[in-house]
């Protein structure tokens, strides 16, 4: 995890943003991410991101819940302690459906939310670099990573031609961490960057 350099361009209209994304990809710049205040349908496709498979994870968690509930109740009521409830069968499948259903939903929901938090690196006290405070308000913030092949002013010009209203260059740590910066805004933990 080292510090990287980024060119940040802010857009105010979805349509210009979409066009700009297309142009960036065509020009071959490394599109780091686009930060938006609300979900924009189709932007993920335009950026070339693949579909999320979080719902598949949810299905698996649900399946885990169903089998756990069923096998636990079967074991408890037929093997471990066959309780006689008014002479009814020990293996009382219809009566277990409510609990199997509830446990399925519980496992799927809790599992999915935890997976979501893990994938998006969401947790209390996590620190991340925020490229623009208005990215959660009214700006669509496009962030292009600088590579040895691209240069700063070229990308800045490119973004302003594409319709960005506000352009700046930022040095940032893109991962997440629980630590602090030093005075020069470099990560304490990142020895390399601090000594450089």
């Amino acid at each position: 995890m080292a510090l990287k350099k980024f060119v940040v361009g802010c857009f105010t209209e979805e349509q210009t943003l979409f066009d700009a994304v297309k142009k960036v990809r065509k020009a071959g710049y490394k599109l780091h991410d686009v930060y938006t205040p609300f979900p924009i349908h189709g932007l993920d496709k335009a950026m070339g991101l693949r579909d999320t498979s979080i719902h598949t994870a949810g299905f698996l968690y649900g399946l885990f819940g169903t089998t756990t509930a069923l096998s636990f109740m079967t074991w408890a009521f037929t093997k471990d302690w066959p309780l006689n409830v008014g002479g009814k069968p020990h293996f009382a499948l219809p009566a277990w459906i409510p609990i199997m259903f509830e446990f399925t939903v519980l496992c799927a929901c809790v599992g999915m939310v935890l997976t979501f938090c893990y994938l998006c690196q969401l947790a209390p006290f996590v620190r991340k670099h925020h490229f623009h405070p208005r990215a959660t308000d009214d700006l669509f913030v496009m962030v292009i990573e600088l590579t040895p092949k691209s240069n700063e002013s070229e990308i800045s010009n490119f973004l302003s031609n594409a319709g960005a209203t506000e352009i700046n260059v930022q040095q940032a740590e893109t991962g997440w961490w629980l630590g602090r910066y030093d005075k020069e805004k470099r990560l304490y933990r990142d020895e390399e960057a601090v000594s450089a």
Partner: protein
Amino acid sequence: MALLKYESQVRPPLVEGTKDYHQVTEDIIRPIEAPPSRLWWIGFLISVALLLFGVYSVYREVTYGVGQWNLNKTIGWGWDITNFVWWVGIGHAGTLISAILLLFRQGWRTGVNRAAEAMTIFAVMCAGQFPIWHMGRVWMAFFVLPYPNTRGPLWVNFNSPLLWDVFAISTYFTVSLLFWYSGLIPDLATVRDRAKLKWRKFMYGVLAMGWTGSTKHWQRHESLSLVLAGLSTPLVLSVHTVVSFDFATSVIPGWHTTIFPPYFVAGAIFSGFAMVQTLLVVTRKVLKLEEYITIEHIEVMNKVIVLTGSIVGIAYLTELFISWYGQNPYEGWAFAKNRLDPFSPYGWSYWLMMGCNVISPQIFWFRKLRRNLVVTFFMSVIVNIGMWFERFVIIVTSIYRDYLPSSWSTYYRPTVWEVGFYLGTFGLFFTCYFLFSKFFPVIAVAEIKHILKKSGESYKKNMDELERKSPDELYHDTHGDHH
């Protein structure tokens, strides 16, 4: 290019006035940043006082036992279980608005879903108190959980509807909370990024858990919301179904009916929407959100109220019919003598229920009354009084004169501590709601922004500009569009 500008003649815009994204943020977040008003303090302190009275009532009950309540051998479930079912029912509207209307792609839900979901969570919290404290020896409450114990291990009875209820209510609470909070995260990040004060930035930073608004994260967020909605929809139906099983699987005349699950679910939605109206009619006024929670929202919810009220009415009549048609003397007695007869000891409660739930909501067939805020507020309270009496009727009138006349009990009246407990849950509910409305965005900011372009005055303005363009120009602009 007139065809491009599709504007529904039937449905008015969901958000009124010309607004840009920043204006939406301003309007909804401003109340969080302003100091609380005098009115807020008065309401909050009354709620806290009620809560404290409730805490004391519960303290009495725990210290001296369930004898602090006027329950007896015949009426073993009185106010407490009535209140439990009443609060659970109220919770259902929140999930209905947030989950079922999401699946049905009902755009209007965005104005009201956040507050309704919060209401769900607080209502379920209140509901949970009643069965827990009704246990009497509440320190044994963990016995309801299937855990390896030293008594065998002796497991809980998985065939019992009361245990299904434990699973249903706790799952419902957990899932509602997760659904609500995952929707809140982006909005909390908005508050965080606007914050000028250090403590506010820190607090909302912790709550927003480092949300950035990355496209990939939004993609996952959308997928998560959709799946949670898909899971919550059968869940919410199952919860009140299971609550109705508490009654329907028993052999008590008046409870032992197969109509209970759909009848309970309809009643739950009915009372839940009424509570949403009670809260939002006030909230939109106090927080000046009339352009987001519009009169249209109120009207749509009133339509749901008249629909579900009528479904409940049909269920009442069906019950009566079946009690006669079934020719079971005990069932017939429960309905004809214990309920229908207005001069029987609790007959008045049956007719109060009929009046509040079936007859009075019919005024919402009139558009003018559906759109009247005073009438709406008044009716929403009436409906919830009626729905409370529905549960009271189901519970008390079915059991107070049972199979054995020598154990009939016609004098059940709650003690002050029983009433105090109920008032205490009002305190809990409104304390939570006041805190929520002060510290959290009561409207889903990101979702409103999402529908703003498709609905609202600014959309029309953009479309007017588009209309003026020539077809060639337009084709050039939108060719290869993302859609």
